[in-house]
């Protein structure tokens, strides 16, 4: 079930380098939140702290608090592995496991939780997840074929199917369409709109129209200056951010005027 994310006073460091400074925000369940902002302002960095994926990077660490409903994501007794099962992630480049079939890709994560997944339950899960990712019709006759043999857009939807097969409550997507053509991009955007019925979705995008099309809430990040950390400048209803933002910086970015 979709969960609320509550971030307060979050700083993210790479070693001594402060990459993101003092972010506080609330992300509502069953909504799509878009992160926009110029390159290098820490959108990916911040996104990865929401499911503790930043811990994979040597030297990366955080200060501050992230709550998933009422659970502290960074609590000392909390296992990052459990957090990632709850908060799924889709990456910029489609990354299906190249050695696995389409079928095995979809159940890869689910198998971790449940080693003894029986055949019919697995079949159901695969169909349900692929349908959920709008991919079922295209691949149902070749589930045994390698996942890497699909087109880029199909691969990305396969990755989404793989992520939702774990039944997370939140889905994080870091520029999920930036490697895709316009048709595949639309397919994914439609999918995002459907998925928000059941998940909390956070998407990073450089595509303003995309943010305007799919998101309910938009958060604008910016750098305080070169070499300075990234900051959350403004967050609000997408409509409002794109029509009458409160901050000058936001307006400049949205209208394409910089500096």
């Amino acid at each position, binding site marked *: 079930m979709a969960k609320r994310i509550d971030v307060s006073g979050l700083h993210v460091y790479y070693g001594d380098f402060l990459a993101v400074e003092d972010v506080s925000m609330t992300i509502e369940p069953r909504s799509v939140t878009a992160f926009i902002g110029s390159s290098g302002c820490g959108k990916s960095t911040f996104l990865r702290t929401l499911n503790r994926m930043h811990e*994979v990077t040597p030297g990366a660490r955080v200060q501050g608090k992230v709550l998933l409903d009422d659970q502290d994501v960074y609590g000392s007794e909390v296992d990052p592995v459990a957090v990632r099962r709850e908060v799924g992630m889709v*990456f910029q*480049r489609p990354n299906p496991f190249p050695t*696995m*079939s389409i079928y095995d890709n979809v159940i890869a994560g689910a198998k*971790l939780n449940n080693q003894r997944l029986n055949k019919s339950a697995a079949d159901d899960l695969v169909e349900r997840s692929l349908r959920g990712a709008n991919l079922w019709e295209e691949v149902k006759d070749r589930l045994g074929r*390698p996942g890497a043999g699909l087109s880029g857009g199909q691969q990305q939807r396969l990755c989404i199917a*793989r992520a939702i097969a774990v039944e997370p409550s939140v889905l994080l997507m870091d520029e999920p369409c930036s490697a895709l053509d316009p048709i595949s991009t639309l397919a994914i955007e439609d999918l995002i709109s459907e998925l928000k019925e059941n998940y909390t979705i956070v998407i990073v995008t450089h595509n303003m129209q995309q943010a305007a099309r799919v998101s309910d809430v938009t958060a604008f990040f910016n750098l305080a200056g070169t070499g300075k950390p990234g900051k959350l400048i403004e967050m609000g209803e997408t409509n409002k951010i794109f029509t009458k933002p409160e901050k000058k910086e936001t307006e400049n970015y949205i209208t394409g005027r910089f500096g």
Partner: protein
Amino acid sequence: MTTTDPSTTAHVPRGKRRIGDVVFANSARGSGILILVILAGVAAFLVAQSFDSLTANTANFLTTSEWDANTREAPAFGVLALAFGTVLGAAIALVLATPVAIGIALFIVYYAPRRIAAVLGYLVDLLAAIPSVVYGLWGIGWLVVQLAPFYTWLETYFGWFPLFAGPVSTTGRTMLSAGIVLAVMILPIITAMSRDVFLQVPQSHREAALALGATRWEMIRMAVIPFGRPGIIGGAMLGLGRALGETMAVAMILSPSLVVSWFLLQSGNQTIAAHIALQYPEATGYGVSALIAAGLVLFAITLLVNMAARFVVSRRKEFA
């Protein structure tokens, strides 16, 4: 066997041909052809030189185990026990070395702190630099002595298992000892190859697994091992090639007898390479030619093993 396929060298488009390209293409093609010529030359030599004794042989070369070749009258010899010993020794080595090598490689790449990883990698590479005579000396002077009581223990508790049936060799100079020494010898190559492929596993695959909620070990099983499989098989194949042909260490450790025996703890067995090395100085009559025939069999086994491994690697290529 690594052969460069000469047909893959440059289809230079028509038009201006640069002198550097021409020289490079031709020298690459030349090296490719040279390798084929050497391979064919060795095979031709083995066939031609063994022809003499094989036609005079009164026993079936492939199905007998005795070796009565040092004569001009009615030689009777066969390669069965030797071929069996060769494959058995190499198989033991492979079975022992591969899991350890994968473990070391995983430890170096994913678990060890950087400094320890570097030292460990260096030590493993050093293992490869030790000459095989030294391994032989170590094997016979130290290892077999240590192993003998362990073999007795194995026989006491696991003697019911056919491979470990007694009577145990009291000297420890058994096929299992030879296999263990061979395992140590092939460990570095398998480790190095595995480590190299593990280092190449794309970050995106590893992150894909971790983002699904995989633990580090699950990530390794899901993303690293499957990706690295061709490299592991390649390393194992190279190791197997070395184990099949290894001469000195085996010749020193085994107390040979020409029987087909599955009993790893009993003395007996011999490998082709060690047999050739030990017999060659005393070979008379058809002896030399017969040994060359044994060499031909070793050559064929190595070739077959390599082709089988290549088949295994390529079979799942569409998934790689």
